[in-house]
């Protein structure tokens, strides 16, 4: 579902995407909880799959239109581990608005079922979500030069013809200009460095490639 949305956005058609509660569950999250038998969590337990879905749903309520348009993404939901709220079940939902480059963290009190705190900021980048890793790879594949390079390397590694970004092993890290000469706008944009694994366990050298998810552009670092 997430991939489909990204492909649509890349094709320039990403206006209408069905948004439902299932979509709000960040991809790949909550596996540890999902596999456990249904139970009533105690305060120190990780969030259950149901709690993650519910927190994401509550936290996304005021952003649905932007999420449908692909402008805002729910990255993931973390348990609020704050010492002052130890006895409460609270979750922090990380959302990112790519149009305004704002990180929005909404704290959801699962007992009350409401957002109890919202923090909005620019220039703070939590790690890329799985969906963002795929989106970054899609942008890479859409680049005429790099896309061809990745496809050829994939075929050379014995993978046959690359069908989609999800055929690749992906891991993303946030790139901030800092000590490396990179695009200045990555100080506020959501820029990702990708690691791309090919069949057979070999890795592409992608260390100079930075994918700007806010501008939907690829940068090559020069060093």
């Amino acid at each position, binding site marked *: 579902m997430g991939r489909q949305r990204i492909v649509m956005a890349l094709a320039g058609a990403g206006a209408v995407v069905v948004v439902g509660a299932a979509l709000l569950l960040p991809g790949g999250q909550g596996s540890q909880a999902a*596999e456990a038998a249904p139970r009533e969590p105690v305060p120190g337990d990780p969030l259950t799959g149901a709690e993650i879905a519910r927190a994401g749903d509550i936290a996304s309520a005021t952003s649905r239109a932007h999420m449908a348009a692909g402008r805002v993404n729910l990255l993931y939901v973390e348990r609020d*581990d704050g010492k002052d709220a130890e006895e409460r079940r609270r979750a922090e939902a990380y959302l990112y608005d790519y149009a305004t480059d704002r990180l929005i963290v909404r704290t959801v009190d699962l007992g009350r079922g409401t957002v109890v705190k919202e923090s909005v900021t620019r220039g703070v980048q939590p*790690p890329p979500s799985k969906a963002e890793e795929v989106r970054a790879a899609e942008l890479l594949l859409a680049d005429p030069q790099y896309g061809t390079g990745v496809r050829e390397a994939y075929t050379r590694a014995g993978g046959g013809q690359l069908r989609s970004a999800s055929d690749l092993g992906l891991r993303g*890290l946030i790139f901030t200009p*800092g000590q490396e*000469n990179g695009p200045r706008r990555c100080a506020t944009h959501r820029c990702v460095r990708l690691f791309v694994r090919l069949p057979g366990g070999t890795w592409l050298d992608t*260390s100079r490639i930075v994918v700007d998810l806010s501008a939907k552009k690829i940068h090559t670092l020069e060093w």
Partner: protein
Amino acid sequence: MSLRLILSCAMLAGVLGPAQTASAAQGPLAMPAARIPAVPAQAPQGTAVAPAVRAPAAPCSAPYRIDRTLPNGARWQLCWEMRTIEGLTLNKVVYTPKGNRPVSVLRSTALAQIHVPYDSGTPRYHDIGALGQSAIPLLAADCPGGERREQSVCVTTRPRGHAYLKSGYEEPSTSAQGHDLVVFAAFQVGWYTYLVEWAFSDDGAITPRVGATGSLAGSTTTAGHGWPIGVGSRDFEESHSHNVFWRLDFDIQGKAGDVVEQYDFSGTRTAKRKLKRTTFTKEAKALNRRTRWWRVVDRGVRNADGHPVSWELNNSDSSQYRGPAGEAFTRADVYVTDYRSCERLATVNPAPRCAGSVDRYVNGERLTDPVLWVNVGYHHVPRDEDADPMPTHWQGFRITPRDVTAKNPH
């Protein structure tokens, strides 16, 4: 033969140092008798040895609960959580020495960053992305003798060699083999696999460490920044550092009363060395020195000798990478900060309205609930043996109990 050696050593000590050995010889024997009456039969209230500490409800449910009594009777209890960002996080760590009451040690500990700058100056990675998303499902063989929790966390016990060995004079020697409770997970970050592990020893020590394995990056450089690992001397694999940061929220029997002290031993090229204690009242950055160590002590929690219970931290194995001005977080080995829930990672902190790195968390606040950040560097100069798979190289530090019990309880 061994008996004769012991005798001659004792005689030698007697000859060489009569004035000192008189008190020293009596010391260990006389001390318990002198000290025991000084300690009330009923220990003061609110201490580790206080009676009737009711066992609280388990802070987490069974799948996340680890409760292991090691062969010598030492018991560790803790909770684990696979957090999306920090990955494996251990909470509510409690140690119970044999025959003693439980002492809570850490409220929480997790990795806080793995900073990987390459020797040519680029690239410079901050390897904590979303670690929880990068956890590798473990095979049974990856968790020898243990149990896998929800595929990616291994809980096991392993031998740690001699706990002690004391010659028995005319009797057989007394010795014991020690064991560790080990909790670990593996994470795939690019070509590297990081093994993130905590060992909880049956003597109360905790050893957090990270092993880097998987594959080398394969990035080549000039001879000055690397090592030739291919045929001949054409391709130089680039050297790099792994600067691993841990966050440790110590709460000795709760958060109240915890204080961080630094210990130094002055005197160089002198016969005498003198203990120097520095108590951190405000947030601080500290550097390693060969004989320097720190401890988190709670003066409200005493052992049966009346000594305050503490955990000592040693960090002397670091390669002590010091980066450029823009990487000020590399310029200390231990940071002590007052607890703030938003201060989670040592760099690239993901929380809004919070400082971005650990060096900025240190901003003069008075310490009421100290959190320790430990930075251990490893400088990896590749070698032929590193290809492929790369043998694991480890880095970590030690946390040892100091005066948690009045004597060796095991």
